[in-house]
């Protein structure tokens, strides 16, 4: 079995100085990336691995406190693995 843990997740930067705790990003995230800390009353990115870079949290934030930074290429299965496509897809 192969392991893939050494990849980088997308980064969701939330400026907690700007965050007003309105929870809009928490509700808008359909991948459960963003959670809300009840103590500090601020949002934080708990599961960036699940981010699908739809940017909807960034769009919806009323104080522009969020920036989604995609890390591409994303963790995808290789379409043409070298072991099955020996002759090509190796750039000259």
């Amino acid at each position: 079995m192969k392991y893939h843990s050494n990849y980088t997740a997308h980064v969701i930067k939330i400026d907690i100085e700007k965050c007003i705790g309105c929870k809009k990003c928490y509700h808008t995230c359909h991948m459960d990336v963003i959670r809300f800390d009840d103590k500090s009353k601020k949002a934080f990115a708990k599961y960036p691995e699940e981010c699908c870079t739809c940017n909807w949290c960034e769009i919806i934030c009323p104080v522009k406190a969020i920036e989604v930074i995609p890390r591409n290429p994303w963790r995808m299965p290789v379409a043409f693995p070298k072991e099955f496509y020996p002759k090509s897809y190796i750039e000259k």
Partner: protein
Amino acid sequence: MANVENIEQQYSSDILIIGGGIAGLVAAIKMKEYDSTLDVLIVDKATTGLSGSKANKGAGVLQVIPENKDVDEFIEYNLKNIGHYLNDQDLMRKYAYTSREVVKDLERWGIPCMREEDGSLSGLEALPHWCLTAIDLDFMFKLHKIANQLGIKMVNKTQTVEVLTNDNRAVGCVGFNIISGEYAVFKAKATVLATGSCNWDVAHMWRSGRGDGIAAAYRAGAELRNAEYANFHNVFLPAGMSVQVGSQYSLYNKKGERLSDKYCKENECDFDIGIFLGMEKEVMEGNGPIVWEESEFFNNNPLAAGGLLFKWNRPWADNFHWREMGKEEKYSSDNRWKPIAEPLFIGELSAVKTDHNMKTTIEGLWAIGDTSRGGAGMSGAVAGPPARMRGSGLMWAAVSSLLCYEDVAKTAKVSAEAEIDAVQVAKFKEEIYAPMKCEKGLDVRDNIHNLKETVAPPRFSLRKNADRIDEALDMIHEIQNRLPTISPQNDYHLLGQWHDLKNMALCGELVFTAAMDRTESRGWHVREDYPERDDKNWLKWIVLKNDNGKIAISYDDIPMDQYKFKPE
């Protein structure tokens, strides 16, 4: 942790809708408008109406077959070019007529459909049989507001896992709160699955489609249909992740040959599987990589996709798309300037079998939207959505909601209070939390990745043969066998991922099982070992059903005698 799991939240309603996307919300609103005394509850893994999933995926584009288009021509074009006679022609007719009702409903709810200056719905000249209009991407917020005003209840951040049954009748569902971990039990007289399709977590914008409702329906005993069609692809640039819809006429191999000249017809309405098989063939023959010629994007491209998205005044959509493209430029890896194109697996298993009221084969259970598009017979020989008709994903979600609401509401009205089986509730609870006992073990995300490597690559998903289907099934069974050793690490979010993995593995198993059985090639089902279309033996639908943990295969004949259009 154990204490939390002892807390049980119980909900009761006349109608339970699982999934708060466009299908779930439109259905809920229609039911409540039809009979305001009905108690309607929507449960969603994220937040009903506020989560941006579908709005993004569908880009707000809507297919409509308006009054000035000929419905017969629309059906005939689809049968010949897209569905290859595997469609339910009566349902397609209903879809076409109901799409007009959807436009009226949306506009009544304050969601304008984009029109030309003369007031007609927008369309594209190269796609003469239907209109391609659009709504702005705030439409879900508007639907959410109306649902709130109508008193529709919503339970959020709750992942449903199993459908509850009693005496072969659906009586609700169970799941857990992904934040607190609390067990949630939903009791209802009528249950509607609106949980979307299965996309196996591959393509970024389609990541939320985990097939949870399809897997739950199957485990509960509902029949599935057309499961072999779950391999839709787009063309994408891996260096930057952008999807190039309609790019099949601007792809070149290393020798400078245009792929569409060899592998697809002119003016296809959307991606033909030939172009993806061609991409793979060229790479196999040493003519890769395949390069996308941006300057030719709009040549011979019926969709003219970029232009389509920006032709209207849609502030939310513009913000969304410009932002995405801006990030593409800013953050893509260094080789973005080399426009190397690859097939991008989208998937789209939508196989829950339904009748024309979207009722499944289980009493008290309906399935709408992407959950049942293929299973209802709407897509034909291609995965849906979009089933090679852009804009038909959002439209089908709304149409199927309109097709179901009256039947659901009437059933809920006359049914006695649902009775849930306490033994089943306890058994599901045990099963749902069982993975938490594995405190240290394999990583769930790694195993999801292993599953993607089985389902997505072209040699398994596009170009099939018996050996490779066997290989894929073996790999899926290996993942299923090691499920007990995969740990959610005492985290309810990861418990959700664990159940997603289980569901997606089951969906993969169902897809390859059906694909093995269909010993012909038709539309997007291509078998190297059976390369011809076989109308004599295969004008029938493959039906899958859970038979005590084994997949039982049977067939529904397509009632071709009753249909207007027959294969030549």
